[in-house]
């Protein structure tokens, strides 16, 4: 049997990329699991967390945290929960109240757990109040209205909007702006990012959100995958450079990249 009989020869570049990238991810996940120290740079946006929590403490007002609309299975929600842990630790240290309205009951349960553990970790389990992390409603705009209502009543000094957001993003950011809160946002939703960037003081953009969560949690699975992707990006950059150079020498490498 000829190779063409059992293999699509024209898909060779895709096959090579799949094998190579797959190996990259597996190797780095294994390394991370074995505890090999893998470097990730500090994510600038996270430095603002301490400052923002400190400001709420000074003003004697609470912090508001929203993890977006998506269920727990989504990457952005998982990332948000990781960052929530960090925010809650700071809030515990500074004895600042943390309020979190939820759209998904499962996300709510997990968030309660995370906040309780964070308070306990900094020696302030007494601060934890499950009523501050509550369920609102499934409805998209119903949720937005509930969060806005909380902002108007409680006047939080700092708002965190971290997770996957949809069209309600600008309603939240605008209300927060009107109450004079510092706002820190982070989302992987491309169409909502512009609104957060213009209406919030600090915004984690797309992959920065994931990287930020990995930076904080050091979860080996996420860490390994992030490193694998990083190396892939470096290789793609090299490919771009080499391809461009060859193009100027009159060699067209584009057909080698498949399709």
């Amino acid at each position, binding site marked *: 049997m000829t190779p063409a009989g059992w293999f699509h020869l024209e898909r060779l570049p895709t096959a090579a990329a799949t094998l190579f990238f797959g190996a990259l991810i597996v190797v780095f996940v294994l390394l991370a699991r074995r505890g090999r120290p893998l470097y990730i740079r500090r994510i600038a946006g996270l430095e603002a967390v301490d400052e923002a929590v400190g400001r709420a403490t000074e003003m004697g007002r609470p912090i508001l945290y929203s993890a977006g609309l998506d269920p727990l299975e989504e990457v952005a929600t998982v990332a948000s929960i990781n960052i929530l842990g960090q925010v809650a630790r700071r809030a515990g240290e500074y004895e600042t109240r943390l309020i979190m309205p939820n759209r998904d009951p499962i996300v709510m349960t997990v968030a309660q757990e995370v906040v309780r553990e964070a308070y306990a970790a900094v020696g302030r389990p007494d601060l934890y109040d499950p009523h501050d992390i509550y369920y609102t409603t499934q409805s998209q705009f119903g949720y937005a209205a509930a969060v806005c209502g909380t902002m108007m009543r409680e006047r939080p000094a700092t708002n965190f909007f971290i997770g996957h957001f949809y069209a309600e993003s600008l309603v939240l950011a605008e209300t927060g702006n009107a109450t004079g809160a510092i706002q820190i946002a982070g989302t992987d939703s491309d169409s909502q*990012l512009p609104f957060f960037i213009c209406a919030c003081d600090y915004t984690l953009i797309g992959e920065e959100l994931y990287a930020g969560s990995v930076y904080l949690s050091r979860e080996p699975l996420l860490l390994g995958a992030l490193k694998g992707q990083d190396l892939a990006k*470096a290789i793609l950059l090299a*490919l771009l450079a080499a391809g*461009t150079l060859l193009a100027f020498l009159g060699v*067209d490498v584009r057909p080698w*990249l*498949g*399709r």
Partner: protein
Amino acid sequence: MAEELGILVGALLTLAIFSLLYRDNPFYRAAEHLLVGVSAGYYVVHYFYAAVIRKFTVPVFQQGEWWLLPGGLLGLLIFFRLRPRTAWLSRYAIAFYVAAWSGYLIPSVLQERVLTQIAGTIPDPAAAAPWALAMSLLVLVGVASILVYFYFSAAHTGALGRISRVGILFLMAGFGASFGYTVMGRVSLLIGRFQYLFEDLPRALGRL
């Protein structure tokens, strides 16, 4: 008659939703809850027809395609989710679904979203026009500097820091375009509703 009456009902419900702009009120809330129920009812009928009747009972029992049976049984496992004690059974259905999707996603996404995009960024050696070449170099610089911006394995200092600062400028221009288009989309949806109220409604009232 039913058509004209329908447009009148639609217009009243449109106004009930718009009333939220003044303030949250019972009309809005009632309309919103009605919408959730009616649309769920509409969807479930289509889901049932599409998934159960057309993709299952018709082919299996009328056209004799018995090999569809395992899919149906696997799908039914999903309903064990409703009870916490049996929820683990539904994992088989979810694992099947998610893994199948993952399997065919890998090569296609690597090719179409990564390799083909890289190929499209490398300048065409045959292109002679200086403007076209300059612009393809601009795109090259943009794509490369954004890849550097989202590279997390090295501190963004020195040359890397400078390149990533170029990347963020491209990102912002792109987000600006998204901003403009998003505003455009929202305005169009409002235009649609006003066309309904100003064009369709008077026409229907005239016929009543």
